[in-house]
């Protein structure tokens, strides 16, 4: 298996340089290049590359905005000339961040890390139209950035026209509506408990009866979710088989 790679940089020479470095690395195959966010998004949606080399500073949409526009983000290695963006928090699902001019050794280590991660992924369900549990989304909240695996999200909550997601100790917002996300998430994994909230079925700790036959679900992170009447019967139905 080789990783399919998309190189995104506004400078032609920078792309040239990266392609030159990548051509000697067996683990990757450069499947395309893009000089701006628009081209990149089009390519990603069509060709679904495994890994992006992404320059942060680009005309039009920058690298972060590009990622925010993606429904599902491939693995990403940031390449940038100078860190003036004070990228502070990549603690979660830490990814690599390389400075140009790239050093070949550093580049190889970064690619190996992605390769390692990718080979553990379950590739069987790749054909499905819905987002898989091991899909990751990019979330930026102020100065903090995360790549969040869907499986790690325990709760999604309506916050105006945005959605607040809960994972580990964090709860940033993503600029998508809960109704939209519901259509994209696997119903076997995520359940719409009520108008406001959707839960990850794997993160349920306890189920308790609530009044008038409804139920209350306690999540592993300590959050309580009350399931609406209509959804209670749906939930019971789901759980019965």
């Amino acid at each position, binding site marked *: 298996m080789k990783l399919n790679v998309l190189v995104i940089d506004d*400078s*032609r020479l*920078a792309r040239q*340089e990266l392609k030159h470095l990548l051509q000697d690395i067996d683990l990757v195959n450069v499947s395309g290049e893009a000089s701006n966010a*628009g081209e990149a998004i089009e390519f990603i949606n069509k060709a679904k590359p495994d890994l992006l080399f992404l320059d942060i500073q680009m005309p*039009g949409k920058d690298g972060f905005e590009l990622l925010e526009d993606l429904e599902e983000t491939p693995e990403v290695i940031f390449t940038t*000339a100078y860190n003036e963006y004070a990228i502070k928090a990549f603690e979660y699902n830490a990814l690599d961040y390389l400075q140009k001019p*790239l050093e070949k050794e550093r580049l190889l280590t970064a690619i190996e890390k992605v390769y390692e991660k990718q080979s553990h992924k379950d590739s069987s369900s790749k054909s499905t139209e819905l987002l898989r549990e091991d899909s990751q989304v990019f979330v930026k909240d102020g100065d903090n950035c995360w790549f969040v695996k869907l499986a790690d999200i325990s709760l999604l909550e309506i916050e105006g026209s945005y959605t607040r997601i809960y994972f580990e100790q964090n709860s940033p917002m993503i600029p998508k509506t809960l109704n939209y996300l519901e259509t994209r998430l696997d119903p076997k994994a995520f359940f719409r408990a009520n108008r406001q909230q959707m839960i990850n079925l794997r993160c349920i700790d306890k189920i308790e009866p609530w009044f008038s036959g409804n139920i209350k679900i306690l999540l592993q992170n300590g959050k309580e979710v009350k399931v609406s009447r209509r959804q209670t019967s749906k939930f019971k139905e789901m759980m019965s088989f």
Partner: protein
Amino acid sequence: MMALYQGINSTNSLIGIFDAFIHLIITHGFRYVLQKTTWKTLSFLKLAVRVVPATFILAVLAKFIVAAFMWWPLGLFDKQPFYFNTLIVAILQSQIILIVWSLIYFSFHYFRNYKSAEIEKWKLEAVLKDAELTALKTQVNPHFLFNCLNNIRALVLEDTEKARDAITKLSDLLRYSIQYNQKQKVTLREEIAIVKQYLALEGIHMDSRLNYTFHIDNDALESEIPPMIVQLLAENAIKHCLSKIPEGGFIKIDVSKTIEALMIQVTNTGQISATPSDSTGLGLRNARERLNLLFGDQASLRIENLDRDNVIAAIHIPLS
């Protein structure tokens, strides 16, 4: 005999306490008045000329109040005669006390002022150093520098001659920017040469996204300007405008010279926001300060949106 002695003794202590009390009130009042004057800032001699008569008046006042107290309610002058000499001595004693008090008061304030003046001086120095450092830091934009090196790395494979050329251009630019704060003025010829190198390097990075033209009056070439000032405008045009536009745009640099003034205009595609970022604001402020230092308050640097698609930065240096 014993009883009489004790009577005198207790009357004396009563006068002593009253005397001390009056001095306390007078020094408080004096301090209150002093706070409204500028005496604290005076030199020692000028201060002495004022303090000696002032304390004399206050001493007289104090002793007259004490004498009045002795006259009534104590009624001492009914029993013993009033000696004028005693009064004079008492007044002088009182004045000495007040002068000592003034000495302590003014030396305390002198040291306090000295200390805060020292702190002010340090603060000012720190601000200046800070400004210098920022100026140094903004000389070459690190983003530009590293992109440039990365591009040259690729050029080495693609076009060796062009790569070699780019290294020379970058060297020129670095040398110029490192040396610039050693000089107050450079000729426009030197500055424009560097701006051309800079734009050529940015052109390598941005490819067809960057177009630029120069129109320089030949008469203007030997005019003197503060170094890195046109460079700053060109860099700002790219950093804040052109690098954000996917299709890119142009930079036009025009220099004209009349008998009255030297005009440098940098026009470029894009729009600027009303509130520039901190580093840009600082860079521009620094440039304005350097212009004003060299050419007086009539020299100016203005940046504004020319129309909906273009920005103009104009430097005006009067020549008369």
